[in-house]
């Protein structure tokens, strides 16, 4: 296939960015989207140009490092899929792919398609942990957790912190991310000790970082590669009110 990539190019954080158009020939439909970008970068290096910077690590859809906007969709057109797990068979010969970095004031562009997501780390530092000793792997059923709560907590824990929720939200709100993290702990016995302070501190940090306010459009839920439900935002609201009053 022949693919045209229109990618956002920006040399550094404070530089002016612009779109540049590149043509990539002989793209196999079995290639991943990133393998196609690798091919384009090889081409750019051979031409003596700067390759396009983009974040990636595991390329298995589990680390949360990657994430770009492809034709206006976070992680591309497929649902429940990270950018690295997207394959070129999702596109057709002659397609134009407009590739942009996550856009949010709280996620400044560092270079090309790479954004600074340290805001998420600082939210996690504010409360995304348990400080009770959990010990080694416990014997089964020594600490009873209902099947329902175990499942709900596991669903929330599937969040890989890629930032697609922030990128997809018209308000750049981080509520789905914070909702998932708060829910994951609030549903388990180990998370109870810091349940109230966690909800308050993580929300406070989220607001400090300059993420927007949630207006319940649910775009985050649609674009989340781990299909985290907005039920976690509803739970975050309840947890926060419970902690505040």
């Amino acid at each position, binding site marked *: 296939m022949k693919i045209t990539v229109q990618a956002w190019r920006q040399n550094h954080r404070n530089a002016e960015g612009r779109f540049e158009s590149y043509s990539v020939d002989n793209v196999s439909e079995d290639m991943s989207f990133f393998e196609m970008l690798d091919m384009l970068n090889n081409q750019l290096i051979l031409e003596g140009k700067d390759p396009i910077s983009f974040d990636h690590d595991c390329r298995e859809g589990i680390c949360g490092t990657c994430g770009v906007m492809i034709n*206006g969709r976070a992680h591309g057109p497929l649902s429940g899929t990270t950018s690295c797990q997207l394959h070129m068979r999702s596109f057709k010969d002659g397609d134009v792919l407009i590739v*942009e970095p996550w856009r949010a004031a709280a996620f400044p562009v560092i270079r090309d398609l790479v954004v600074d997501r340290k805001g998420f780390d600082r939210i996690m530092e504010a409360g995304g942990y348990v400080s009770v000793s959990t010990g080694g792997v416990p014997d089964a059923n020594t600490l009873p957790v209902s099947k329902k709560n175990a499942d709900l907590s596991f669903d929330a824990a599937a969040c890989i912190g890629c930032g697609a929720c922030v990128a997809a*939200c*018209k308000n750049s709100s981080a509520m789905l991310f914070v909702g998932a993290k708060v829910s994951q702990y609030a549903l388990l016995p180990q998370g109870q000790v810091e349940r109230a302070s966690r909800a308050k501190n993580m929300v406070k940090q989220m607001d400090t970082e300059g993420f*927007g306010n949630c*207006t319940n459009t649910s*775009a985050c839920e649609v*674009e989340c590669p781990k299909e985290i439900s907005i039920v976690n935002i*509803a739970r975050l609201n309840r947890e926060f009110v419970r902690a505040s*009053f």
Partner: protein
Amino acid sequence: MTWLIQFFQTSIGKKFLMAVTGIMLVFFLITHLAGNLMLFGGAEMFNNYVLSLRSIKPLIRIAEVVLVLIFICHIFSGIQVTLENRKAKPQPYRVSPGSSTSKFYSRTMAVSGSVIFIFLVFHLQTFWWSFQKKQGNDTGFYEIVVNSSVGYKNPAIALFYIIALLLLAIHLRHGFQSAFQTFGLGESRYKGAIEKVSVLFWLIIPLGFVSIPLYFGFIK
């Protein structure tokens, strides 16, 4: 009191303020519509209804002050949230996902809300203010609403009312369910019930309001 102000200054607190005031305003719509439907009963019925409200004027005044306070909270919180959200997304994407990730009515709350606000100012300035100017047993309320230059007999006015009320329906289509999501009930076992009840508020009540300018402006 400080803790309450602090709560309402957080992102979740602001959501709650929008949701609580929004739901209160929606309940006001029920009483407002009930009164308005008296127009269909003719001039005498409507005028007597307005006079009966006048007999409990102190109560009405209190209700009006409360209503204004709720409106102010809802509008100011809406403006604050909109401005902050624009700041949080300083650069838009070159390609918009459009309706593939969210419903248009959920993305346009600030626009629909702004038009409803302009409508509200006009509505109060014409009907409410004209009603206030009437003294004693002067009963020309029906005449103002139906036959005056600012009333429904003027097709431009009737059309403006219909457009604003349809925007109200679009505003409530998202607003009603969104409020319950904010309360933490959106995805709960009450979801089905909330969806059913929401039809009353976003569809039936606005259509009830629309029926009045439609009938007096274009049918009667």
